[in-house]
């Protein structure tokens, strides 16, 4: 799926709020892949998905902070989600890579992921908050996990925890 059609789909899913009226516990998620593992962001916090742009580096920031880009005249900070989740940094393949633009309270942050897969509706009772995983990713950002059949799982991430002001703080130490 290319970035533009995905953004349109995100918009149409957001405006189509019927299921949420049927059941309060039903929520939509944007599912993406990072190192063969699937993750989900709450769709309501997603602004759009864009292709990989040239990113301008910024000094003094933690290693997961990739830099800033120009998104139609607005400057947006970009985070390497792989590094943020405690994985090893790897070179990105510009052609395949996507940037998911997220929006929480007052911060707009772009997250680099491998591919964006689909929009998925999930009922709350399908999400398990007990984690029995063998991955080494930082657990404090995970709100739950769901089984999607054939042994594969989706990990749901909290954007508020992942991209809070404290998490993104500039390294204040000099030199």
């Amino acid at each position, binding site marked *: 799926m290319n970035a533009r059609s995905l953004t349109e789909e995100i918009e149409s899913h957001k405006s189509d709020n019927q299921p949420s009226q049927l059941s309060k516990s039903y929520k939509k998620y944007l599912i993406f892949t990072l190192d063969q593992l699937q993750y989900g962001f709450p769709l309501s916090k997603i602004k759009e998905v864009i292709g990989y742009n*040239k990113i*301008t*580096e*910024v*000094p*003094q*920031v933690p290693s997961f902070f990739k830099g*800033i*880009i*120009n998104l139609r*005249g*607005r*400057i*947006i*900070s970009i985070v390497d989600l792989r590094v943020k989740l405690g994985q090893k940094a790897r070179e990105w393949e510009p052609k395949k890579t996507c940037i998911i633009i997220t929006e929480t309270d*007052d*911060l*707009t*942050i772009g997250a680099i992921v491998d591919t964006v897969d689909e929009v998925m509706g999930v009922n709350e009772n399908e999400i398990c908050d007990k984690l029995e995983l063998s991955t080494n990713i930082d657990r404090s950002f995970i709100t739950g996990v769901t089984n999607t059949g054939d042994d594969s799982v989706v990990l749901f991430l909290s954007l508020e925890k992942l*991209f809070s*002001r404290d998490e*993104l*703080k*500039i390294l*204040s130490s*000099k*030199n």
Partner: protein
Amino acid sequence: MASYDTDELKETFLIECEESLDRTECFFMDLESNPTDRNIINQIFRLAHSIKGSAKSVGFDQLGELTHALEELLVLLQNGQIQPNQYVVDTLLSSNDLLRMMTSNLREDYEHKTDTSVVSKRIKTIMDGFCESEVNSSSNDSISDNGLTLFSETETDLISKRTDHEPSKLRENQRPMDRQSEDKDEFIRLSLKKIESLIDNLGEQVILQSSLEEAAKNPILNEDLISKTISQLGKITLDLQKSAMALRMVPVQSLYQKTRRIIRDTSRSLGKPVEIMTKGEETEIDKVFVDELSSVVSHIIRNAIDHGIENQEERLEARKPERAKIKLNAYQSFGYFLLEIADDGRGIDTKKIYQKAMSKGLLDDQKSYSDEELINLIFTSGFSTAQSVTDVSGRGVGMDAVLSKVKSLKGDIKVISKPGIGTTFTIRLPLSIAIFNGIVFTLCGDRFVLPSTDIHEVYWFSEKQISRINENKSIITRGDEVIELVDFEKSLGIKKRPFNDSKRMVSLIVEINRKKMGLKVDDIIGQVRVVQKRLGHELKELRGVSGGAILGDGEVALVLNLSSLQDDIKNAA
């Protein structure tokens, strides 16, 4: 939903209230100079009345109550039952300050309660005083005499309190305002004309866009039309940019108004009568500048009244009019906004500056210095010629802060001083904080922008000119001049290594604390007109960066702010 609506009402009320309070403050000061003008009192009364009514309807009871008390006082003034003497005007002004503080507090927190006891007591004193003098009037004919003695007792008390608390109180008042400008959304009053011009330009752009789309269906046939439309589109876009920028511009009047109050208060607490003259109130300036400049202007004014303007005896001796003059003049010239602040005081004593600077080891006794060079020393940090430290103009942490503030707004200050005649400060700023000229350069493979006003010159040099003093320090020599060379990437906290492949090296010569320094960079790309953009909140703490600029190829470059990098540069040197 309901609570959202009332919140919006509250917010709107508070914004309107702030505007009204600006106007009442002006009226109160007018009243002081024209005590008999009924028209002024009527206008104040109307404003107070509408604040009271709205405050109660949106549930700010405390604000309503204070305005109510104020209103009762105004009724007495309106009927001529009390006269707007100093004590009354002081009370009016301090209740205005208090109301402003309350509004500012309420904007942060709708439930906030402010201590109003002091002002309420003052209002009550006047009201009681009036009642007493009214009672007395039945037995005694000299109402005014009686009233005056009644007030003068409290007045001396009040003045001693004022000098004690005024400066700290002023500073306290300023802090919430600064904070507000960071976190709270701000509002601007716009003329319909500006909006119409924006919409007209936008409409034109939409039409050109659609005719371009139409023509693009057959690009070969329409080649001429397409190129013509594109050039038209370019022109409209520029107009659009201009009209959009014009939305940020406000008349400098509101700055004058704040200044007027500062002059009044300072001249009163120092006992030096000052007359203010203003010119160019309608000159427009970026809204952000008005707020930022007020601290700069008030500092210069306090200094002028404290140090520049002589006391009464000295003025008489010098055959100057008893009332000193401070003139404010704002105008635009060559794409810049200029503000002159002139006093008719004793001028800056360059001999005193010389002695002081020598004693501090700031000057070389072998060299001779021009008056201009000496005067500019007042902007050096820690430099103050004041004989005594006063509450009004601080302790030598003043003018350097003023300069760095103006620099951070991409402007500069000039000082002209004539002994015995007076001193003029001229602040020069770009018309808008958002658009300015900058130099684009590369460092460690990334591009950066530094405002042209910060750069003295771009200096190319060869490796031979560098001498290393020690591990961290090197200098370049040019003729008999020696300039300290700074590895700029270190001051910025860049971890990568710079690349210089050629023998020629380049540095940006800047002035830090009146000292020339060379910032070594990789290469110079050129000069551009920069439209500065804000970075996200998450990058607020970034040292030395004031924002981002989008370059011709659509990529972002960081815009650097030299004044906030001063310490890092000094440490790296």
